[in-house]
């Protein structure tokens, strides 16, 4: 009796487990899956920011940043840059009279010359910029005031420019090409550079006007309507921007590839500057040979056809000559910044080292029994 009941108990012990398993199989158990994800037990890296753990990072940053900074600084210092302000705000400046007598409507260009001396010769290619200051090309309404599809050669936009161009959309009933305020305010000074020999003769320095715009702008974004030939016909029925002296198809009559919308000076201008004081690439002075510098030191004269008024907004106009490195123009800031940050990191590294010795050791000894 006892034995049998004992056995029965043993038997009884099994079926429930079996049946419960069977039940789990047949009826889906509501028990949550025991997966690492659902139970939030995924293997994980748990960094703790303490002096001890981040020490190396600081030193590494310091060690990397300082050389980069020095490199940048040196590179920047090797870039030669020269700048002439030809606005003519002061009475003794050469362009004073031009600046004062300006009006958009005058037909006769005002000419003036500025002389300057380069102390050092400029090696390799020299980039010639014009710089404007206090010119807010980034004003929201100004930035909007253009029609990209018109500039892309779209015929319907040519005859019916976007509303964004208002009020420079039509002139006397004709659509303006290129429309908008940006095009309308195109920088139209002409700059010519002459080197003055020791004997006083002026040698014109050849200025290349192509290759100053982005390749993609020139070849993709900007297109003349109906190809580059016979622009006059293509632009028939359009008006020139109000402030312009000549229509768009006469921007560079000599070179079909640089005329109309794909005129590079125009393209450069149309890429609106980010900041109110900016420079825009004007010409490139190509390196002649390896022996002679592109611009030897000495006296130069800059002939300016003074068209562009800047006094209405307290602006300044400059001509900038600059050599170029891989990091662009001259700018010592980044180099200094890298050196400074690198040094700070290094210094912080040292501070952390001290802290580490003072605190972390205590923590570690307290936390981790050896």
């Amino acid at each position, binding site marked *: 009796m006892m034995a049998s009941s004992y056995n029965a108990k043993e038997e009884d012990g099994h079926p*429930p487990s079996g049946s419960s398993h069977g*039940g789990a199989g047949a009826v889906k158990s509501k028990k949550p899956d025991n997966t690492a994800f659902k139970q939030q037990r995924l*293997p994980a890296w748990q960094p703790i920011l303490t002096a001890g753990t981040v020490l190396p990072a600081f030193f590494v940053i310091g060690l990397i940043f300082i050389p980069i900074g020095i490199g940048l600084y040196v590179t920047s210092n090797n870039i030669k840059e020269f700048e002439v302000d030809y606005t003519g705000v002061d009475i003794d400046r050469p362009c004073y009279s031009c600046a004062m007598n300006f009006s958009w409507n005058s037909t006769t260009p005002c000419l003036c010359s500025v002389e300057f001396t380069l102390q050092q010769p400029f090696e390799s290619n020299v980039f010639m910029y014009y710089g404007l200051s206090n*010119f807010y090309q980034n004003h929201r309404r100004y930035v909007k005031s253009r029609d*990209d599809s018109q500039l892309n050669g779209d015929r319907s936009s040519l005859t019916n420019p976007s509303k964004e161009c208002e009020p420079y959309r039509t002139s006397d009933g004709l659509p303006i090409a290129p429309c908008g305020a940006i095009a309308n305010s195109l920088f139209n000074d002409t700059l010519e550079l002459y080197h003055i020999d020791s004997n006083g003769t002026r040698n014109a320095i050849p200025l290349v006007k192509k290759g100053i715009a982005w390749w993609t702008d020139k070849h993709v974004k900007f297109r003349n309507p109906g190809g580059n030939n016979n622009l006059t016909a293509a632009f028939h029925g359009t008006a020139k921007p109000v402030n312009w002296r000549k229509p768009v198809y006469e921007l560079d009559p000599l070179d079909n590839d640089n005329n109309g919308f794909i005129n590079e000076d125009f393209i450069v201008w149309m890429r609106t500057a980010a900041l109110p004081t900016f420079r825009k690439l004007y010409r490139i002075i190509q390196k002649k040979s390896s022996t002679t510098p592109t611009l030897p030191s000495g006296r130069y004269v800059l002939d300016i056809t003074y068209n562009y008024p800047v006094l209405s907004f307290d602006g300044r106009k400059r001509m900038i000559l600059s050599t170029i490195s891989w990091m662009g123009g001259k700018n010592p800031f980044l180099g200094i910044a890298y050196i400074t940050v690198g040094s700070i990191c290094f210094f912080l590294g040292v501070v952390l080292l001290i802290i580490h010795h003072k605190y972390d050791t205590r923590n570690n000894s307290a936390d981790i029994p050896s």
Partner: protein
Amino acid sequence: MTWRSPLALVRDYLQGQRAREKDLRNLVSNLPYEGLEKRKQPNRYFLSNAIKTTKYTLLFFIPMNLFEQFHRLANLYFVGLAILNFVPAVNAFQPDVALIPICVILSLTALKDAWEDFRRYQSDRKLNNTPCFIYSRKEKQFVQRRWKDVRVGDFVKVVYNEIIPADLLLLHTSDPSGVCLIETANLDGETNLKQRTVVSGLCNTSPEFEPESFNSIVVCEKPNNNLNHFKCYVEKPDKEKVGAGIESLLLRGCTVRNTDHAVGFVVYAGHETKSMLNNNGPRYKRSKLERKLNTDVIFCVILLFTMCLIGALGHFLWLQALPSVPPYLVPDSNGHLDSPSLSAFYMFFTMIILLQILIPISLYVSIELVKIGQIFFITNDADLYDDDTEVRMQCRALNITEDLGQIEYIFSDKTGTLTENKMVFRRCSIVGTEYPHKENAIRLALLAEVDLEEEVIFNQHPQPPQTSWSLDAEDTNSQDSHRRGSRCKSKVAASAQSDVAFSSPLETEVIPDRKLLQQISRAESSSRRKTDPYLDFFLALAICNTVVVSMATAQRRRVSVSPHAWQTNNALDTLSNVVKNAGCIFTSCWRKPKRNRTVSEGSALEDDSFQPPLKMTGTVNTNGIQTYSLHTPSQGDKPAATLDNLRYEAESPDEAALVYAAKAYGFTLLARTPDSVTVRLPSGEDLVFEVLDTLTFDSNRKRMSVLVRHPITKEYVLYTKGADSAIMELLGTPYAEHLMTRNIAADTQHHLDCYAKEGLRTLCITKKVVSDNVYESWLVDRQRALAAIDNREELIMDTAVQLEKNLSLLGATGIEDRLQENVPDTIMALREAGIQVWVLTGDKPETAVNIGYACRLLEKDDLVINMSCKNKLACTSILDCTLEEVRRYSQDPRNVDTTPDISLVIDGCTLTMAMSPDLQERFVDLAKRCRSVLCCRVTPLQKSRVVKVIREKLKVMTLAVGDGANDVNMIQAADVGIGISGQEGMQAVMASDFAISRFKHLKKLLLVHGHWCYTRLANMIIYFLYKNVAYVNLLFWYQFFCGFSATAMVDYWLMIFFNLFFTSVPPIMFGIMDRDVSAEMLLGVPELYRTGQGAGQYKFSTFWVSILDAFYQSLVCFFIPYLVYMDSDIGIFTFGTPLNTVSLFTILVHLSIEIKTWTVVHWVVMFGSVALYFIVTLAYSAICVTCNPPSNPYWILQNQMADPMFYLICIISTVVALLPRYMFHVLKNSIAPSPLVQARHLDRLDSSTKEQWIKEWRSFRGGGQVKRSRLSTPPSPTLENSVDINPETPTAAENMEDDFTLNVTSQRPVHT
């Protein structure tokens, strides 16, 4: 269809309105009007049974959904901005583009709503088309229709296992005694069967019900949502009124069980049914964090306005400073330029549009996503899953997960929450003699141990003795094995799927006390057996209850048995079979103890002596007329394992415990119908008592009685059981005068006090013999009360009180309610976590204090303040005194470090006084200083009031946890309500925000998930605000260089994408998955929970620090590129590209500083975001030749990426921007590490050393070891060191609503 004038229609509508609004409704049968057009129908004004829970209709979805969505202020704000963008004077972007974000958000939400609504529509349609039977006059029978065809006034037949389509007034059932059993699980989750009876005296008891003969008027009250209450009377043609209550109402959504078919009259249909009225969607709570977030969003708005104001002012000054009109100032189309002040005014609005993302549009959406993710993880936690009941943790409120991490006060119910609410009969006292049931106690202790090991599974089924094997062996065997399987399973999977609510051997088995058994056998054999108090005592235990008897094998066969088979096999028949087959019952009964390892010897000895004489005869008269007869002896050839088949389903677990106890002594409750109770005596006789009336329990009387007619003596006997306080006053005076009975009362009282000290729940059992003429006169009153419409409940109660007096005390019982597993441990942990735990219970102070010690709510060396006073004056002085003492103690310099652990025990009526407005402050102040508070004898309303007062006065986060209907108020009053899906139905769960199945789950829920959810969400929100400010400020700084003209230097699409795609996923993932400290650590060191309490991580200062950091970072991100590109030929959008990139890097690396745990998901998301940024931007820059003027990003990023400067800028800006924050973290973690950081350090150790450290940490912080203390050996209540300022013993009426929670109903005044 005849044409009707509009006026008539309107009138009809108004009449309908009025008919629905009336307090009483007169309903008549639809049958005479069958086939008539609608306006002739008498019940046309009442809603039909078709339901529609959808919010929208197909046609009006878009406008309605938009309307709904625009209730959100944020959406309105963004639409306003989008509209503002269409005003030419102020627009910042292309108008149509600016619509995109808001459209995306709106359409996503609309899509979600539409899908949800569609699902509702589908389920509605399914429900509406469910078939049901409606009586048709034409066809003279019940015909199959669909639910939606059911109308008020119809006769509906529901068959076995069918769901009831509408609220039906039960008129007829297949059961001859007019009973219908329903299961209300669909409604409230309670799985025990509820008994419904037909409205008496309406239908002649012919076997078939004829609806056409029904010509009475049913008058019922206006529909309400009270599931436990219904008022109605039926007016017969002869003006006789028959009252009916909830006991005759079949509720829509319930299932008919154990009854072949039932016919009811539809009183409420469709949306007016009680179940639909109870069905109000998910609750919407606002979490504390979200409330705080809203104030921060307001600060963001202020910040935005300030920035816009600066912009407008700057623009004005800039315009003023211009000497004349420059070429870059574009006039409007007429060539006219606005004056500076006007442009500045316009500029203000333009700036708002430009800087709008400072108010995070995506934050709210992100928070919702994060919470969904958090809930996913909480519900999927295997530790919060209860294997026994197969129930997962449920999150019912979707948006307060993070509140779980901030709880400061927990208010807990006792019964069913701290304890199992599985009642175990422990001791009893009969006529002044105590029977301690030592064997039973030993068995329980053993069982408890086994239970803890969770290894041995007890099989409580007796092995049918070989000797009694028989012809039916096969049958019985299969039955038995089937049952055994299910039983074993139900031991493992205790009660949720519960065939039977109280099924573990713990409750069902009681080992009889040896002395008591002898006493009974003596009584049995004695001559005055009819009036022997011992027999009466057990008869009372067996009879005086509302337990439903059912068969384990026969009940609820849902699919296996066809209704036809069941038809001939209803309860009574089965019972008669049972009786016929009876034999060897006691042999098998007494064999049960053999399963017990230690006690079997002792009880085996008694086997023989208690082998009852198997002399049984009889038939059960199926006509329903109860007779008593001796049954013919069964020859022992028919085994009677069937007696074990009996299952007792009780509304309250202690009733079941008492019935099982009676059964152990041989008084087996065999059957219960509304009119009769069959009890088998130890001698084997079956006594059939005619039940004359049942005076059900209510919380005012705190007792229940059953009036029966004794089959032998033919006396009217009233058995009453109830709380001792309610009973002791009612003891008859003649007995009181008599010295011996006085002693009985006194002795019993003494025993009761002992029981209470042991933590047992006590009940007194009394008997009263009612003389015939008293009964007759009482019956008249009673019937009048039953038929009454006005004050029906009060009258019924009065009649009950009338009868329940001059009782004679039979004895008392002590029932143990065992503590749930790990309760002391959980309470300790919660307390260490800085949470004050209050226990609010309806029990008496002694019981409560005892449980308090058992669950370590009170400690031995605690200072226990016992507050209990009768009047307010005393209460005031006690409060003052105590407060003064406590204050002095804490101010005493000697006690600086040794803060005493003060605990407060307060009873219900003192609590009421203490909570009165003038004493409230003092009480709260005192309670604040107490480590734990125990409130005894509190009513549900008091519970919620306590919660409210503490919550409002102390401004703390409160959590209420409870399992019964009496906790609903409290659960709803607290910030976080937690329901325990236990024994007492689902009302608490339905009202709760979270539902767990065991109290111990609270520990992980709060300490781990609460902490995680809170830190995650708090950090995510701070990060989100930071992110927006940091990004928007780039635009703001740029304004200083573009004449405050609201130029954006980043393409607008990229700006949208930046927030929508590039930087949205990492914070969401951060909010869902980050894990600052591991779960083991949080459980091991509950102290870590404190970081979330109070203001927690999301402080006001945190917000401002992160905003300042955002300012700094944006300054760096802007000015480093600015200084690099100063005076160069950089274009606007070429300049914007590195800014955007730097910002992305900064924002993402900032997040990675905040991320504490890097899993695969983190890496993928982080690198994915960066990759996505470059891929999308590169693709966009490559494709977009003339699109999206003016930004036109064509080839810009490509150009930039070819430039080494771009990378140099990105690297240094990111480093500089994040250096301070990084440094701050490093220094803080190194010099003054927070406990969380220390925990993270420990986390990295291997598990064994970790455990060791956790232990040391805890002991160092004074946590101490947590011992498991069990109730079986409770520490004696050490009241020696308590400040016992109350000499009076509590005499207030004992509150027993804990015992009978289901009966707590709100009593509505009746209007006629």
